[in-house]
């Protein structure tokens, strides 16, 4: 695909996304798109770690939960406005990612996978049992919708689905841009070299720890931001934000969409938020089907839908693809 085609394609996509609320009458569908956007931010971060750095984390929900709880607590206990809760979520997830990274980034392969899962489980236990702070399993209700205001001058609440949709869209564009720049920088190339052969990359001076830390912190901050949006959008959070089911959903989205590609998370998130609604009859069978999809895709389509589209496109243009 040429660079020019790609730019035009992206422009069409952005315009379509901007206009979408004018054509969609059904609020529920807007809600689905917001959900897809939320998952996109999470999966884009996961993709940096799993797809580019080649480290499988099962603790991405830890930072979703950290972001959500930070924002909710700041908003409920200190009545902080949206800008402050967002900054708080970013700061807390950044600091915790750095500290946790100091421990886990020295671990390789299976050890990393398992300890990341343990980290999320630990936070879930704390969120469930520290009742005086988190209200335990009952959760924290009543988080305000995002508000932009200059005291005395104006106040603007993002309290409708459409307004929130535009906020989400802006965020999705920012995240995509940041991911794109990151992946095509020295950091991205270093990560890919570490993914392909960690020992070899280190032997030519690529620091696994340094680049691992940058990617890990970036991915975690994405998740923290998603958590902040989640708390303000749903207005209620409980320890289930740390749940393994979200982790699995993200992983299925990433693997099916295509890990290690910019477009992959996008395909995955759209497919798995919109498609299950179309197949509402089969709701009970959704999770078993998820499981089978994960097995089949992991074996037969290691590059997911993004890889498949690329191959189909190449055949269409009559070229062989590497």
């Amino acid at each position: 695909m040429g660079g020019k085609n790609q730019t035009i394609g992206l422009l069409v996509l952005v315009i379509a996304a901007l206009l979408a609320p004018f054509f969609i009458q059904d609020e529920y569908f807007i809600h689905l798109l917001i959900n897809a956007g939320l998952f996109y931010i999470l999966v884009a971060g996961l993709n940096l770690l799993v797809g580019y750095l080649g480290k499988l984390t099962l603790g991405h929900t830890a930072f979703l939960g950290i972001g959500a709880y930070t924002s909710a607590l700041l908003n409920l206990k200190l009545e902080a406005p949206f800008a402050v809760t967002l900054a708080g979520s970013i700061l807390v997830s950044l600091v915790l990612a750095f500290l946790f990274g100091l421990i886990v980034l020295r671990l390789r392969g299976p050890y990393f996978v398992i300890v990341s899962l343990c980290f999320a489980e630990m936070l879930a236990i704390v969120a469930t049992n520290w009742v005086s702070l988190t209200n335990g399993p009952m959760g924290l209700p009543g988080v305000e919708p995002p508000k932009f205001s200059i005291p005395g001058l104006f106040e603007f609440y993002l309290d409708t689905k459409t307004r929130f949709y535009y906020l989400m869209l802006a965020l999705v564009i920012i995240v995509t841009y940041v991911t794109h720049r990151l992946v095509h920088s020295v950091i991205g190339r270093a990560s890919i070299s570490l993914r392909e052969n960690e020992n070899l990359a280190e032997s030519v001076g690529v620091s696994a720890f340094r680049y691992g830390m940058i990617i890990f912190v970036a991915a975690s901050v994405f998740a923290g931001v998603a958590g902040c949006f989640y708390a303000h959008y749903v207005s209620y959070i409980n320890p289930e934000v740390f749940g393994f089911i979200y982790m699995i959903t993200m992983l299925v989205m990433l693997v099916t969409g295509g890990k290690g590609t910019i477009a992959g998370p996008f395909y995955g998130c759209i497919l798995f938020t919109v498609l299950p609604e179309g197949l509402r009859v089969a709701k009970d069978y959704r999770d078993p089907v998820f499981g089978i999809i994960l097995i089949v895709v992991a074996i037969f389509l290691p590059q997911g839908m993004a890889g498949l589209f690329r191959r189909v496109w190449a055949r269409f243009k009559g070229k062989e693809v590497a």
Partner: protein
Amino acid sequence: MVPEILQQLLNGLIIGATYGLMAVGMTMIFGMMDIINFAHGEIYMLGGVFAYYLVSLLGLNYFESIALSVALVMAVGLIFDQLVLRKLRDEPTLITILVTIGLSIFLQSTVMLFWGPSPQGIPSPFPSKTIQIGPIFLTPFKIFMAAVTVAVIFGLHLMIQKTTLGKTMRAVFQEKEAAAIVGININKVYAINFALGSGLAGLAGALLGTLFVVYPNMGLIAVVKAFLIVIMGGMGNFLGAIFGGLLLGVVESMAAGFISSSYKDLFGLLIVMIVLVVRPYGLFGKKI
């Protein structure tokens, strides 16, 4: 105070031995096949589920049900290995992890369809009244559980050390290319190994499902615990898994008895974090 410590110690050892069973299964599968089996927790859950159905629906007696349940779980492991894992023998671990996560989701949600979310205990013929031995109280079922666990671990040890099959397994464990060159059927050994490892998890599920309850989501926390143990003991380390299991059981039991029962699961996780900060490859592990 002293009797209470002894009591918690014994409770911890008995439950820890069952954790050990599960962890040995996981470490066998990892050590030989390089597979981190995320479905191990669901295999454990299936052990409890099959035993429950065999006792309460088919009306088999308790001991037959446990034995049959373990056999069924081994069959599930065998089928999964031959149908799916066999195709992935030379793939990177990331792929096999994803595939076993897929299996874990599939098994958990499928069981949820039949079972529903509510927990059930497996009815056992043991009387629930406690027996007093000196200052310590025990239920007959806990004694049975400890006896079965010890017997199975010794049986497994004898099998691996003394029989031809055990010798073959050790050969593949050490050096699979060399084992293949001298004519060992690697695929067959892998399949047997995976089935055996699954059987151990199934047995643990049936036993703990009798002591506590069985429910479709019970696998997640169990697999996390098995991971913790396997990490502490060093991945692929048989003895490490048993000691790790006993240690985790005792730590949990002490924490629940003397600190706080709602935070008991946190202590195991914390210990592993600390172990890994000090030794990134586990207590008995080697650098990989």
